[in-house]
Each structure stands twice: as structure tokens, then as C-alpha cells.
């Protein structure tokens, strides 16, 4: 059973691994964008303290969040309908 820290680190690395195909820098930005849009504040705070146990892309992503905050949407997934936008959805 993974502890919460291990799970958060594993989640961040897993996201990074799946973005890896688009190149290191883009992958880091996409990972940062993903975490910003989908993680609860406490999880985001907690992962900040675990960068040394992360892979390069994930660690770079957390650094981006620390320094510049959430990046602009990197994929459709994190682009959201504006208040009156109809027809778009992110049905789970």
C-alpha cells in the first residue's frame, strides 16, 4: 500500500511519463498545467516538498508551478468552455 507521499510522487511521474513523447520542455509544461487544473490545493502543496524523489520532467513541472504558477492550457483537456460556451464537456 503506497503512502500518500509515494502515491503523489508516483502520480506526478506517471503524468510526466505519458507526456514524454512530446519532448522534455513541452512535457514539463503539460505536466504543470495538468497538476494545476486537476490537483487539490493540499496535494499541490505537498508535492512541492517531494521534488527530489521525482523524475526530471515531473521535477521541472513542479518547479514551473512554484516559480510561474499555472501555465496556460497546453491541451484541449485543460481548455475550458467560457461561461456561455455550450457543447463542450469533459464528461468523465
Amino acid at each position, binding site marked *: *500500500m503506497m503512502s500518500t507521499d509515494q502515491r503523489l510522487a508516483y502520480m506526478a511521474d506517471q503524468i510526466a511519463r*505519458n507526456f514524454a513523447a512530446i519532448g522534455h520542455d513541452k512535457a514539463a509544461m503539460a505536466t504543470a498545467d495538468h497538476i494545476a487544473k486537476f490537483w*487539490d490545493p493540499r496535494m499541490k502543496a505537498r508535492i512541492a516538498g517531494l521534488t527530489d524523489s521525482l523524475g526530471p520532467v515531473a521535477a521541472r513541472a513542479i518547479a514551473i508551478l512554484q516559480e510561474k504558477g499555472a501555465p496556460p492550457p497546453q491541451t484541449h483537456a485543460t481548455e475550458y468552455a*467560457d*461561461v456561455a460556451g*455550450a*457543447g463542450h*464537456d469533459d464528461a468523465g
Partner: protein
Amino acid sequence: MGWIGEIDLGTKPMPVTGPLVSLTIDGQPVDVPAGTSIMRAAALMGTNIPKLCATDTLESFGSCRICLVEIDGRAGYPASCTTPVTPGMVVRTQTDKLAKLRKGVMELYISDHPLDCLTCSANGDCELQDQAGAVGLRDVRYGYDGANHLDAAKDESNPYFTFDPAKCIVCSRCVRACDEVQGTLALTVDGRGFSSHIAASQDEDFLSSECVSCGACVQACPTSALIEKEVIKVGTPDKAVITTCAYCGVGCTFRAEMRGEQLVRMVPWKDGKANRGHSCVKGRFAWGYANHKERILNPMIRASVHEPWREVSWEEAIAHTASEFRRIQSTYGTRAVGGITSSRCTNEETFLVQKLIRQGFGNNNVDTCARVCHSPTGYGLKTTFGTSAGTQDFDSVQHSDVILVIGANPTDGHPVFASRMKRRLRQGAKLIVIDPRRTDLVRSPHIEAAHHLSLRPGTNVAVLTAMAHVIVTEGLFDEAYIRERCDWDEYEDWAAFVSEDHRSPEASAEITGVDPDELRKAARLYATGGNGAIYYGLGVTEHSQGSSTVMAIANLAMATGNVGREGVGVNPLRGQNNVQGACDMGSFPHEFSGYRHVSDPEARAMFEDAWGVPLDDEPGLRIPNMLDAATDGAFKALFIQGEDILQSDPNTAHVAAGLAAMECVVVQDLFLNETANYAHVFLPGSTFLEKDGTFTNAERRIQRVRKVMSPLNGFADWEIVQMVAQAMGLGWNYTHPSEIMDEIAALTPSFANVHYDALEEHGSLQWPATAAAPLGTPTMHLDGFVRGKGRFVVTDYVATDEKTGPRFPLLLTTGRILSHYNVGAQTRRTDNVAWHPEDLLEIHPHDAENRGLHDGQWVSLRSRAGETTLRALVTERVAPGVVYTTFHHPTTQANVITTDFSDWATNCPEYKVTAVQVSPSNGPSDWQESYEAQAKRSRRIEPRLEPAE
């Protein structure tokens, strides 16, 4: 028996309304589409020509011969059901000669039919009875002691309907329904001539035959030969309410036929746009759970999960719930509480639960069970198409030329849609199946997959990328389509990516275990075979690369121009009746209803104005994260409506630990489910038969659920949530679900035109239903992707970390069976257990042999996460090295085996890949025993002592 109060026009409508033909029937002019039968033309002008073998859901057959008519200039007496109209035809439906012939035929029928109309279960609802009256039969001159079938034995093996051959007139409507509507062909006529009689399979009883108990034959039967047991018990129903089934994502519409408030039978509605008059065993018959004795009808609370439940009044339970949440928030902080919405409750109820959490609790800790099924669909399709709902409606399959089914077993999971798919396949469409198991679609009567790619579980992305490799490198992509509708630069990156040598079918064969030549043929067929439609299910989403697989699917569809018209598309077969609706209503922690992110100031402002409270702008916790936070002591209270995460979510031990660490778990459900073992408050819920509301099915169709009987527990679920909200000081005062839908429409753009009066008028609406598309959107992305260009996304195969090895050499994948639904809470409390009383472990003969296992033996199933025992079923349906089971029965604790691994983007659990070992067992595992003991202890109830006020 057929439909009460519904007209039967006798023959099917013409598929495409061609030019109108005008003719004269009984002196009256009538105009009908070319090809329409005389019978239907007459029925449309109110003349009901006598008929028995004809019904408007089946092809005309021409066997009973009482629908004969006279036509000027034509010899003889043609049957009106099998004679199409021709211009200028002059028809007479009633002459002395016709009357005599009809009476002659009826005299023959009744010479071999019991004369017990008044005690017959179809009395008053029997077409033979009606027609005998219509033709004026007064005497059977053959007498009654000639050869007959009156002593034929009744077959009562099926729990839901009886087959009484003595009442059968051999019109074959049942045989034809099992062939044309359901596609199982389990019925035939046995023998010929006078001895012809209807038989299931090899003249055996229905239950042991090939019959899947869908009820189409019972519905088609004109007499009481095939009739629901409930009708035999209660009598014929006298009124009907149109409602929507609460089981799978197909969203079949039914006529709930009743006497007073007593439900007599559920009959599929001919005008239902998702099911077109068809049903499966669950929706049609398995509704008995609604008044099952195990239903909890009184609220209960307890201080600790180790104490028995204490029945209390509603006021006390509600007040206790509200105060507990307030107490815990003040002690542990606003974000220490949360809730889970149900994908089985109505849109209105789901909306209220997330409103209770956001407005009442002030945080975004809300999630739904879509998390564990189609959340990757949302992420994947949104990333590629810009929107993440299925692109087609179910009717679209009628226009498909190539159907690709990946990671889905529709004949079990979505049986009514599977029947419609089979009908198209039998018309000549080609089928490709990508699945580790030999599902029924791979080969079953009249159905055979052109290609079955039997891949190793967990290698979907590798297979789909290899197919992309073939399509790109062999120049089979639709360049014009891509340039017009997609982002060409992204396509070129993607094309280069998939074209690399090590992503060819040959190179990836070693990972996927799929024959490269077979894969190439499948790819070529999909790309060049005409309208290509992809249907997929949890076999795609419940992987560590679930989202990547969905994107890989979308890439294939875009590369071959298969999005944006009828007959094509990417279609998630959503598991539950309202999982689409639950997501639309904002059940995810990071967005409001209509998919606006909580961090979006404008969207948030709209909700804040409507609800009069500041709202949290940060995403909340997902279910696995709630459980982690609970074990860390930071998450203390959970409100769960209509969900059983202890049984349905992976890694049961982890879920149990999380729940045990909470101080107040509130469960709102019909029965004491497994999660209730760790609950402190139980609020009895209501079934779909006991409330008004709407469900949204897998094709985005919003359909009405209508109240059939008053709730046994006293309140509809939305009323209970309202009471909790009011107890927490939120000023809710909804009097009817339509008001909740009005609020949803006001706050959710894609639901702008969705109101109950619109639903009443159109029967159903497929969102987006906006000013631009007031009647809804059957097919999406018609003239281009809704949000700009389709995006190709590079999806690289990343092997799952769930590795097989010497300790765990086999791969377990899980799924569902026709007779049961999700965790079986409802279906286990119906007669459906007759088909599947226990979960079984399917194992290949080789794997069984070298473990000394034989069919039916108790085996131990172990993974890194835990161990359980169940019985083995030795079958070649699974490939060597792969084992399979279902999770319908809590005793098997199947999810104690599944691990923590999940989809990288949405945390959808990796149910489909678990490394396991199977060995002979010597009885239930320790976990099972300790679990049973705890569950038994926790289900004790102390009834209320004070007199009922």
C-alpha cells in the same frame, strides 16, 4: 402479451419514405409511402383488417391468412399484410366471401384451442379472442375431439414468464422476434404440419436453452402462450407510464404498466429512440428489487461502526447529519468533508448533491463513480475532439459499414444496443473485435468478426498505434478531411511518430501478442471499408493508459475521416444509466455543471450569484485522494448517494482503511450495501420507479423518469438531499424536479433548452440543446469539430507497472455479465440470480491443467493487493495466460485483488490488468472471513422503540 392501449399497424413502416402512392380502400382514398402494405394503409385510415401473425415490429409473414382482402382486377384473395399498395388499386376489406373465409380460418384455430377464455391469463388482452369476435365465429363444426395440442406441458422454468404451448397458434411471432429483434435465434418451430410446435433450442425448457430472457417473444405473442408471470398473478394492467430504465447506459424507454400503484410489467416502448421497442432481461423483468424485503425504509444512525444501527425519525437523522458535518468542518477545516454523487440517480438529484457540497460544505470535494469507468473518455475525447461525449446516436449504427469494437462486450454490457449492432452486421457490415477474450461478438450465430485481435491485456495503445502505422505508411488516411477539419501540423507530427519502424505491427507483435498480418488487414478494413464506427467500453478506459487509448482511438477516427456524419464516430458505451448525466451535472472535483473549471472566475461568479455564497476556486479531491487524506487524518466526513465504493472501487483494503478513519460516513441507498458497513448515518433511498426526474444515456439523450408508485421510504432522493441542505441552513425550496432542471438549464449552456415541457413534447432531447440546436444534436461535429480543429495527440505505449512474474504469472481482467448490473445490489435481489448465482474465474484449459485445477473447483486468486477465493470455470473464451471474473457478488470480494494502479490522467483504476496467481484453495481467504464477520456485525439493527407517531 402485446401492448395495451397502443395501436399495432400490422406491418413495419417503410425505412425511407419514398413517393406517396394513392389508392382506394373501402371507397375511401388514402395516400401512403410506396412499399407500404395494404394492411398498414388501412390501419392508418382507421380500418383494422383482422390479423394474427402480423405485428408492426416484425417483417410481414403471411401465415395466419385472416387478413385476406379483395382487389379489383386481381384474382384470388391476397393477404393484405404481404401485398404492397400500387397506384390506383381498389381494395375491399369486408365482403361476404372474405367474411366466410375468415370465419373458416378462425373455426380451424379454435378447433385446436382451449375454451377457457374467462380464466385465461390473457383474458381481455388476447388477439385471438379479439379476432374470433371480429370475424363472428359462432360454431366449430369440426367438434373438439379431433387431434389437438391441449395437453401440451407448460414450461415455467424461466423465472419471469410462462410458456403454455396449448395456447399457441404457431404464428411464429416469437420465433421471428428472437431472430429479427434480439438476434439470438433461440426459438424455432419443431416438426412440421399439424405437429408443428414452438421450441426453445432443442425443445428444452427456456431456462436451459439459448434464450437470454430479453422478453421480446413474450411481447410479440398474441395470446397467453408466452406471458409474464406477474400478469398471471395480478391480472392485466390498466394504465401505463412512460419511464426510462435505471440499469445500463443504453437508456431504454419502457411503458411501466400498472394496476393502481402496483407495477404489473415493464414493456419496452416502441417509440423509445434508444431501444426502438426492444429490451433486455434486466430492464424488462429485473425490477423486483424495488419492493424486496431487504430494503431499508427507516433512517438509522450510530456513533461508531462497531455498534448496531439505531432506527430514528427522519428529523433526527437529518439534524444529526447536518450537525455532524458542521462539527467536523469546524474541527478539521472546510476541506475535511466531501461527497460522492451517484451515476444511478437522476440528473436533478446529482445536481443537488454537488450543490450541497459546493454551496453547503463550501469546497469542491465531490466525485462520482464515473471516476472508475469513463473518466478517461472525458479526458481523451476532449483533448482530441474538444468535447468528450459520444459523437453519434444509437441509430447511427444502421449506417455503418465497418464496426470496430474494442474493450467492450456489448452482448453482456449493452444488450439492446448489441442487438441493433447485430442487425446491421447481419445486413453485411464488417466487424473488427479487439479484446483479449473471445467475446460473443467474435463468433455467435450469424455473427463473425472479420478480424479478432486477441491482444495481451494492457497493450491497447501499442495495437492502436500499430494500426495507425499501417494507415499512415500505406497511405490510407483521408488527407482532404484532415486538412479541412484537423490541425495539419499536429497530424504531421503524429504521422511521423506512428510511422517509426518500431511501432509497426511486426515490431509491436512481441508486446501485443497480435498477429501482424491480421492487424494490417484490420487496419486496412477500418480505413477503407466505408463508414467506420468505433464502439468501446471499460476495456479501454480501465487501464493505466486509459486516456491515451481513447486518444489513440480518436486519432484513428480523424485520420480516416470517420467523425462528423451518420454511421461513423467514436462511441463510448457508458456503463450506467446516468453516468453521462452525473458528469454533465458537475460531479467532478474540478468543474461546475457544463464543464466550466472551478478556477474560471466568470463561471464561478454565475454560480455564486445563483447560490448566494462564495465558492472554492480550487479543484477538490478525487475518491482515491479522499481516502488517502482520510488515512492521513485530514478528511473526516463523506456523504455518499447511491454508490458502493467498498465493493466497486479497487483495492478494497485501502478503501476500508479510508472509510474506517472517518468520523461521519453518510450512505443514502436502497439497501445496506458494503460501504454501509463503515457508515454512521443511513438515509433510505428511493428507486427510479418512485420518483420523477431525468437520466442521460450514452448518446447524450436526456429522457424522463416518471413516478410509478409512491416511495416506500417516504421521500424521493432529491427531497432527502433538500432536507439535509435545509438543515444546514441553505434556503432550498424545490417542489418538483422540473424546477431543479430549470435551474440547471439556467446555469448550464448545453442544457439551455432542456425543460420538462420540451421533454414531454419531443419525448427526449440529445444535448447540446441550445438556441442554435433547439431539438438537440443527434450527431456531433457535423461540419467541423465544435471547438476549432480536431487535434492529433501523440500516444506512446507506456507499459503498466503491474508486471507479471514468477509469483504472479497470470493477468486478471474483470467485466460484467448480462444478468447482473454493476455491483449487483439490485440484480442480486431479483430472480436474475437464476442465471449467475456466483462470480466465476474463467481460466484457460492449459493454465488450469498445469495447476491441477478442474472445472467448478474452488480456487484461490492472489495478487499483490490481496487474496480471495471463488470457483473456476475452465474455458477457451480466455487466452492462455489471461484469467477473467466479474464483481457482482460481494462474497467474492473481487476488488480485494485489484491494485492501486490507475489511469495517468484521471485515476480511473486499472481493473483490467492485475498480475495474479491461481492455485487450488482450501476455503475462503482470511480477508473474506474477517470481512464477512465485520459485515455481519455491522448490519445489526435495533428497531425504533417509541410508538410510531
